[in-house]
């Protein structure tokens, strides 16, 4: 393409500035976790690894991590089940209200989290009288993660078409065998990408969790938030924050390895 060298360099430097804008704050988080000072001051005067060993032994962090993992896995399982069956219904059948249901599934992620949060909390506490706890967190998280599994599964089902299934059934396989040997293997990587994204969203969620978690449960984001303004916890918070930054590379690596569909893990 013909583009002047001047414009080319200008764009290249803008790209550089943009990447610097993205990565400088994240690097600060990682460097700060080795800062030997208890209170925040930049630049760090000296470095230490003692906060890392303290954070690993911290029971609050361990418990919070456990709750986040449990809630994330349960919510992902529900989202996988509901999102996939909805994707099958929408891609393979015509029915009354199809437009409405495909709009309804994106609503929980399009509305502000605070609206979803107080709506669910109001329903649980005032209307239904359910005490909030792990179950209500899972319900909240599943509600807004169904859409990501649904989107991934629907895109794959539409692209797959039905000819493979028809061929399989022409060759004598029944519906269940066809699903097990043809449909599911073809769908698997899309479901994996959707599940990964659903888990990521759930693991990171704070707003809906704030309103649906009972007093006894702290997920990792809630733990970070509660300790953010406690000066003596700052070094531990820094280590947890740095860990989350470093771990964020993992899903990108996995989705690039496993799915050629889109590098975004199906977020778009």
């Amino acid at each position, binding site marked *: 393409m013909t583009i002047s060298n001047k414009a080319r360099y200008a764009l290249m430097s803008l790209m550089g500035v943009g990447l610097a804008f*993205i990565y400088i704050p994240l690097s600060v988080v990682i460097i700060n976790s080795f800062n030997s000072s208890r209170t925040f001051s930049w630049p760090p005067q000296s470095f230490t690894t003692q906060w890392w060993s303290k954070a690993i032994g911290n029971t609050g962090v361990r418990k919070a991590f456990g709750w986040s993992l449990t809630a994330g896995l349960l919510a992902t399982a529900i989202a996988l089940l509901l999102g996939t069956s*909805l994707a099958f219904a929408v891609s393979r059948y015509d029915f009354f209200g199809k437009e409405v249901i495909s709009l309804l599934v994106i609503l929980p992620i399009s509305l502000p989290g605070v609206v*979803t949060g107080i709506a669910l909390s*109001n329903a649980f506490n005032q209307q239904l009288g359910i005490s909030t706890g792990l179950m209500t967190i899972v319900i909240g998280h599943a509600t807004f993660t*169904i859409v990501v599994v649904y989107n991934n599964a629907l895109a794959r089902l539409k692209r797959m078409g039905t000819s493979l299934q028809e061929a399989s059934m022409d060759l004598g396989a029944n519906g269940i065998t066809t699903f097990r040997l043809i449909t599911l293997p073809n769908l698997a990587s899309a479901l994996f990408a959707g599940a990964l994204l659903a888990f990521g969203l759930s693991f990171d969620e704070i707003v809906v969790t704030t309103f649906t978690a009972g007093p006894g449960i702290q997920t990792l984001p809630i733990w970070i938030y509660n300790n953010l303004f406690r000066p003596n916890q700052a070094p531990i918070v820094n280590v947890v924050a740095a860990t989350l930054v470093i771990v964020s590379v993992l899903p990108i690596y996995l989705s690039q390895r496993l799915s050629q569909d889109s590098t975004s893990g199906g977020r778009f």
Partner: protein
Amino acid sequence: MKSSVARWMYKRPKFRLVALLAAPTLWLVVAYLGALGALLVTAFFTIDSFTGDVVAQFNLGNFQDMLTDPAYRNVVLRTLGIALSVTLICATFAIPMAFFMAKIAKPRNQKILVALVLTPLWASYLVKIYAWRSMLEPRTGVIDWVLGPIGIRSPGFGGPAIVIGLSYLWLPYMILPIYAGLERLPNSLLDASGDLGAGNFYTFRRVILPLIFPSLVAGSMFTFSLSLGDYITAQIIGGKLQMLGNVVYQNFSINLPFAATIATIPVAIMAIYLWLVRRTGALASL
């Protein structure tokens, strides 16, 4: 046994459809729409001023308070201003970056750049805002350390900090759809425009911009709507400044009906925004 079940199912497509639809529909309609509906109804209730309990008596008092008190009007305008600034800043950064990624970078580097833009999306939301606390901290922060010597000071915690923080959070959501839009745009169009004598800027304004408009709209739906309902960023780096979400959050425990009333504002704004977007036809070509 198994094949007889399969045969039975095969003959009944209606049954299969109902089986597939039942659980997700029940979940979304009962758990989600039901909760939203109940919240909307609560917006018309009031609370007992002694006990603080919700009194189920229909009245428009909350809406009257919300519309007549200038404090709430200011919060709405401020929140809209922040959401619009964030969207504009993200678009200004995202267009050149996406253009470089899609049209100038070598194919091998393209993949790396996409991964570099995507990775922060998986880093925790809270951690990213926390990072900006360290950046913006007056005197001891990173910005004052780096830019202080050349006379640039950190804006501290407040409105500008919220705009910076939210732009930082949602920038990848703007870059990725524009990148996808530019990738679909054939290079020959740009060449043709150049051959016909258009300069870089003219080509951008008359050829590229109209064609990536749907992608811009897609990105803006993230940047705008995510900013509109946010309250955690304002709590962490906003100083004393309040956004709509903060008002909802604060009223949640003391006056739930009023919180519900305020919560209708971002929903209404998003509905209007979506309606405007629909009218431009940008959604259809996504």
